[in-house]
């Protein structure tokens, strides 16, 4: 562990650092799997489910990132996601899944457009406008779902008829041997096998597409003139304006893209995850997406990791009938806290070390004294994890400097 830490501290290239971190995570998972004796921790089913659960959260987070990089705090992601589920269901059941995607995009543009009009053009407080979008999105979807789906064959007031499925890929020749390798329970090797087999098992084309969106976002925002300008609007709009960057235009683009991303997250839920639009389908994922974006330090890579984490814990919880896997997660959490504590010791922040140490000790004794985790606790685990992560990471986060501040042209500062 300390070896990995020193690699991370050293001047090694980012690839090397990433590899080191990756191996460390696998090793920890492996140790926990052995100690807690839960093979399902890294099984094909778990990983595959985790990926499916991570995608909508990640897309919502990506949506948040686009808006906040342009300086607009978007807590209306949940509402935009709901609009996306409805758009996907409405066009999807009639004209097929591809049309469903298009529907989600259109409704995402609608949500983003209203939000941009309120926050960018009229300078309405972004939190209030975001809350309004959440209420509006929900009400809109409920109202029109009743009209659109009540009389449809196989539909109802809160549910659309089913949407035909999009293609998925399964690489059996790769996946199946890896599954048996996973079953052998080798140190690290099995984890790696489980991971790969899970990723290539019933891989939805939407998942591939989403991964592409992450890569594209990273490239566009950090490598192109367009992206630099968009981010400059979130950092210092007055400076951007003084160099001839059209601040309002870039804010609009950021917020509209945000709406589309969140809506695509909703479309994934409707089309790939369940095959129908259903009321309450998003279940707060828009907010979790926002949290993953903050966890990911307003960067695509970090957001993806955050979403993966949530998806993973959620998947374990869902597949864990007797609570043993969640018990292993308690141990995993304790180990993570210990790593953080070591980092804090190096920084000489002893109060933090103390807090982390106590929490880790409580978790470990909990692990040792129980054999399974109550369902209720398992239910809140992802949220607890969010809180923990945000509480300890918040000091290292670097949000865009002008995030959340309405911009009015010509006001000299």
């Amino acid at each position, binding site marked *: 562990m300390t070896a990995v830490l020193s690699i991370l501290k050293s001047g090694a290239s980012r690839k090397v650092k990433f590899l080191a971190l990756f191996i460390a995570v696998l090793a920890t998972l492996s140790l926990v799997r052995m100690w807690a004796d839960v093979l399902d921790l890294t099984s094909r089913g778990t990983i595959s489910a985790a990926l499916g659960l991570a995608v909508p959260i990640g897309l919502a987070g990506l949506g948040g990132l686009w808006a906040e990089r342009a300086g607009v705090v978007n807590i209306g992601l949940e509402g935009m996601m709901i609009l996306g589920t409805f758009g996907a269901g409405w066009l999807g059941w009639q004209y097929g899944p591809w049309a469903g995607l298009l529907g989600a995009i259109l409704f995402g543009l609608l949500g983003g457009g209203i939000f941009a009009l309120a926050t960018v053009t009229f300078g309405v407080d972004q939190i209030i406008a975001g809350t309004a979008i959440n209420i509006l999105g929900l009400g809109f979807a409920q109202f029109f779902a009743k009209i659109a789906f009540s009389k449809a064959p196989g539909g109802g007031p809160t549910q659309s008829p089913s949407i035909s499925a999009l293609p998925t890929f399964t690489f059996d020749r790769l996946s199946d041997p890896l599954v048996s390798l996973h079953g052998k329970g080798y140190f690290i090797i099995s984890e790696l096998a489980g991971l790969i087999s899970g990723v290539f098992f019933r891989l939805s084309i939407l998942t591939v597409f989403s991964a592409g969106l992450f890569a594209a976002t990273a490239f566009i925002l950090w490598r192109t003139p367009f992206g630099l*300008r968009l981010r400059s609007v979130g950092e210092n709009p007055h*400076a*951007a304006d003084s*160099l*001839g*960057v059209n601040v309002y235009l870039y804010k609009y683009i950021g917020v509209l893209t945000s709406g589309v991303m969140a809506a695509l997250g909703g479309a994934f839920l409707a089309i790939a995850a369940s095959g129908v639009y259903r009321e309450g389908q998003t279940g707060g994922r828009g907010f979790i997406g926002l949290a993953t974006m903050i966890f990911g330090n307003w960067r695509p890579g970090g957001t993806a990791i955050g979403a993966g984490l949530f998806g993973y814990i959620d998947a374990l919880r869902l597949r864990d009938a007797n609570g043993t896997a969640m018990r292993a997660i308690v141990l995993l959490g304790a180990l993570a806290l210990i790593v953080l504590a070591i980092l804090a010791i190096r920084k000489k922040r002893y109060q933090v070390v103390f807090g982390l140490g106590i929490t880790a000790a409580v978790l470990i004794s909990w692990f040792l004294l129980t054999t399974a985790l109550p369902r209720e606790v398992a239910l809140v685990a992802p949220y607890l994890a969010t809180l923990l992560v945000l509480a300890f990471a918040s000091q290292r986060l670097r949000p865009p400097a002008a995030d959340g501040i309405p911009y009015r042209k*010509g006001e000299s500062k």
Partner: protein
Amino acid sequence: MLAVELQGIWKRFPGVIANSNINLKVEQGSVHAIVGENGAGKSTLMKILYGMQRADEGTISVNGKIVEFDSPSDSIEVGIGMVHQHFMLADNFTVLENVVLGSEPTKAGSIDFAAAKSRISEISDSYGLEIDADALVGDLGVGDRQRVEILKVLYRGARILILDEPTAVLVPHEVDELFEALRGLKSEGITVIFISHKLDEVLQIADEITVIRRGTTVATLNQKTQTVTAEQLAELMVGSELPTPETRGSTVTEQVVLLVSELTSVNSDGKAEISDLSFKIHAGEILGIAGVEGNGQSELVEAIMGTRAATGSIWINDQDASKLGTRKRRELGVAYIPEDRSRLALLLDAPLWENRILGHQTQAPNAKGIRLTPKLTKMDTKRIIQEFDVRTPGIDVLASALSGGNQQKFIVGREMSGNPILLIASHPTRGVDVGAQAAIWDELRAAREKGLAVLLISADLDELIGMSDSIKVILRGKFVADADPATVTPQQLGNAMTGALKAAN
């Protein structure tokens, strides 16, 4: 050949006429200075020329052609560049990102970072700007930021350069470097329009000088054909004599107001920003701190005000204040003029009278018990505006509508209210015109005679030497020398500040 000609420019804001019938001619390849008191309308005029604001009336000609600007990109196109009074930089961006923003070189759709980098180092080499393109702007000191701003403008190939108070934040040798760079630009045929309140600098660098008073151009003086003096300029600007910072006689008493010992503050990387600073200030004493910016002055001030964690002890008026919060310290009678007024001293989007409450929210005349007393606050705000000659249409305007110098005068007025016993002043006259400078100095002198203890930090060495009873030189967070204001010269002090000399006397 005229690079710029402005004719009959008018600009009105609600309640203020910022520019009224401005006429200005700027020769190509010359340095043209614009001087005028705070709120005279200099920045507004430059923003109009740069396309950031639109004139209500009047015409702008550039290189003999009449132009109309809708946005800065129009003016950038005809070769105008502006360095603003307040830095226009994104702290979370690198120097490179800040510089190329808006005119990025591309290769196959993405930013060509390599080309940008070589271009930047080319420019910074040929004008001696010396900047690391990969540094994060948030990590740079003010002198470096200034150079980044100039780099930004040159990078866009500007032939007409507007500099709005570029020297306000620089120390003498940085000013010399800047002027060296400006002379280089001039010899390449670049036109420079230069705003400053420091008249000696203006006389040093400018070919022509235009004076603006209450929004109108009142005179243009040519240094090639006539001898211009600072007195003459001051006369034209404010109709008064040139003030000098000077305190007569010592008023230092035996009573220690601020006692600081072994003050140390470490940043998040474990590096000491200030280490082992010990000193005392008596009632009636002004202690000056000299140093190049970024050598621990800000950290020292923050530690004393309680906004930065530090070890060591701080006693204010025989009370241990080391463990007290900032509000408690202020209630002991500490007044504070911070270095960054828009970030630390004002709520720009709040009306002036609400800003009067800031930092004094528990004290009269703003509060009685748990209740705020807006009526009294408003009355007192009016008093400050009168006593300190803050030029504003009223007390209900937003703080952001005041010109830079008038914001500063307001802050000084607020902090001097309520008879403080200790004043922590960072650059109290930065960006303030000669008239207001005199008023602030008078105020400090009067308060000092009544027993105010002052910690004075200033980049203006004349001010530092003239006002202080004793001077300490700070370098990399440590006191490296003491100087006697009675004998030390600005040159000696400047050398001590950069570590060139061990002691200044």
